[in-house]
């Protein structure tokens, strides 16, 4: 499977080869694609628009599309009225996501090496063991984790989430990195070792640069999954180590005029993932398919 998804910049070349506009049904299908795309993005656009309205305009029926823009929602979200600042949870999310992603790479790259370039015996079994841990529902192991964390005083500690997110993403990362490392041609490594290049040096100067795009794809996916995680964070953290998704759950049962604030909160918390995802659209599909699609 060596499919490549066209990144947006590649589109013009495709357009150039398209038949001229004599095809009426072709135009209609293009129009249909636009309508479907707009339908799917509409809730996000509505979320962004509402976040920039003041609370009164946000809660009208029928909706007031052209109400004056306002930063009231954002001001409220950042604690101008309640005093509860979202910054500590946001920073906790950054800490947990970034550190666990680094830890995942540190563990996954050597493991993937031992499953591709210099494979251990029965390496396919090991690979499937990694994937099978991903299939066991996390909720089934949650209670012992909670009890152990309670016993060693790690509840409400961001390091506990770093460790758990690392284990959550490690199988995905091993699968992805293995498929990228398997692409490194054996002759290159052969040549390096003929020339007397030591193994760590081969890794550092030849292998890592060759699979750098793969490492980027892996990091992106691990970052997104850690950033989004709710169940562990909800059960295992409280006031000190709560992450951004846990902070968001305080809006679940809200009443009254708060729609602009909720939408502002959703925009702020989603922004890092949106930016990372848009910037690396072509990496996204590689990552989501565990490296099976390139």
């Amino acid at each position, binding site marked *: 499977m*060596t*499919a*490549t*998804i*066209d990144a947006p910049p590649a589109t013009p070349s495709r*357009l150039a080869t398209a038949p001229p506009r004599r095809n009426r049904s*072709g135009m209609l*299908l*293009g129009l249909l694609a*636009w309508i*479907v795309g707009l339908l799917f*993005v509409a*809730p996000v656009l*509505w*979320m962004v628009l509402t976040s920039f309205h003041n609370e009164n305009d946000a809660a009208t*029926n*029928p*909706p007031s599309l052209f109400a004056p823009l306002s930063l009231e929602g954002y001001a409220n979200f950042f604690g101008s009225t309640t005093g509860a600042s979202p910054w500590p949870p946001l920073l906790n999310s950054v800490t947990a996501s970034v550190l666990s992603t680094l830890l995942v790479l540190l563990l996954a790259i*050597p*493991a993937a090496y031992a*499953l591709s370039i*210099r*494979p*251990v015996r029965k390496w396919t079994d090991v690979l*499937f063991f*990694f*994937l*099978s841990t991903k*299939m*066991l*529902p*996390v*909720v*089934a*192991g949650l*209670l*012992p984790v909670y009890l*152990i964390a309670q016993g060693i005083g790690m509840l409400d500690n961001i390091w506990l989430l770093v*460790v758990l997110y*690392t284990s959550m993403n*490690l199988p995905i990362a091993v699968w992805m990195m293995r498929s990228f490392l398997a692409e490194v041609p*054996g002759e290159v490594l*052969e040549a390096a*070792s003929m020339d007397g290049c030591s193994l760590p040096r081969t890794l550092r100067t030849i292998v890592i640069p060759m699979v750098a795009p793969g490492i980027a794809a892996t990091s992106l996916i691990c970052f997104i999954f850690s950033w*989004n995680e709710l169940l562990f964070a909800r*059960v295992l953290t409280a006031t000190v180590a709560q992450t951004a998704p846990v902070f*968001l*759950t305080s809006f*679940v049962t*809200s009443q009254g005029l*708060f*729609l602009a604030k909720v939408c502002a*909160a*959703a925009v702020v918390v*989603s922004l890092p*993932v*949106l930016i990372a*995802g*848009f910037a690396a659209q072509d990496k996204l599909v590689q990552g989501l*398919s565990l490296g099976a699609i390139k």
Partner: protein
Amino acid sequence: MSTALEPRSDAATADRPGDGRSARRAGDWARRAPLLPALIFLIIVTQLPFVGTLVISFMDWNAYYPDERGFAGFDNFARVLTDVNTRDSIITTIVLTVSVVLISLVLGLLIALLLDRAFLGRGLVRTMMITPFLVVPVAAALVWKHALYNPEYGLFNGLLTGLFGENAVQPDWISTWPLSSIVAALVWQWTPFMMLIILAGLQSKPHDVMEAAKIDGCSNWQTFRYMTFPHLRQYLELGGLLGSIYIVQNFDAVFTITSGGLGTANLPYTIYQTFYNAQDYGRASAAGVVVVIGTILIAMLALRTVSSLFREEGSR
């Protein structure tokens, strides 16, 4: 697969026949060494807790009654398996997972077919399509619950008023169709995922063969039915499998949109509640063990799918 290095290391050890065996064993361990940290870490963090769950599932343990802790035999399992709530949540889990995966696969396929053609602004439409998948799940569920479904000022009812005037019907979406509300929000998030995987499949199909089919007079439907679809099958399977793994475990949407009420509590939510609110550790663990057994059965099927994909990749 690059196993090119393998013979060389064996050849090196064969020079000294006397201690060839121990050298080879050392070589084996040198190969395993980079694997071990990841493997040991994963076993400790993900497998040991399951052993704990298994042990606690045979115990009478409720944190509200710490003095009554003891061995319970199969009581927890009997309670879990005869409990109406658990049975309902098993059914809810199946309905939720199957409907979300199937609907988003079909929609994803149709949209991928639309996007596989050249048209003005194709890259932009593709970007718009993947946006829902990049919204943090809790945030997406909050927006659907409050900004779209809300009967008084949500967008859906607002549009109904806008289209049909003051007397338009104003349904209370979540109370009237609780499970469908969750399904709709999840389909919105997961269709882009399926679309991306299927689109990658479409773009990897052999163009020369498609061209030949066209020249030989195959209709569009024939080309799709006999060439595109068989080629796409493995991509559809991959999307369905990965989607199922994530959606079967969904907690965020159920927790946010209905808080498990109105018959929408799936297994992850029910276990979370038994443990977090009812503090019934024994029973929560028994439910966890039941889930694990169910998942293993499904996972064995799923793993077979992946390994067939994998063989194809390997034989490339």
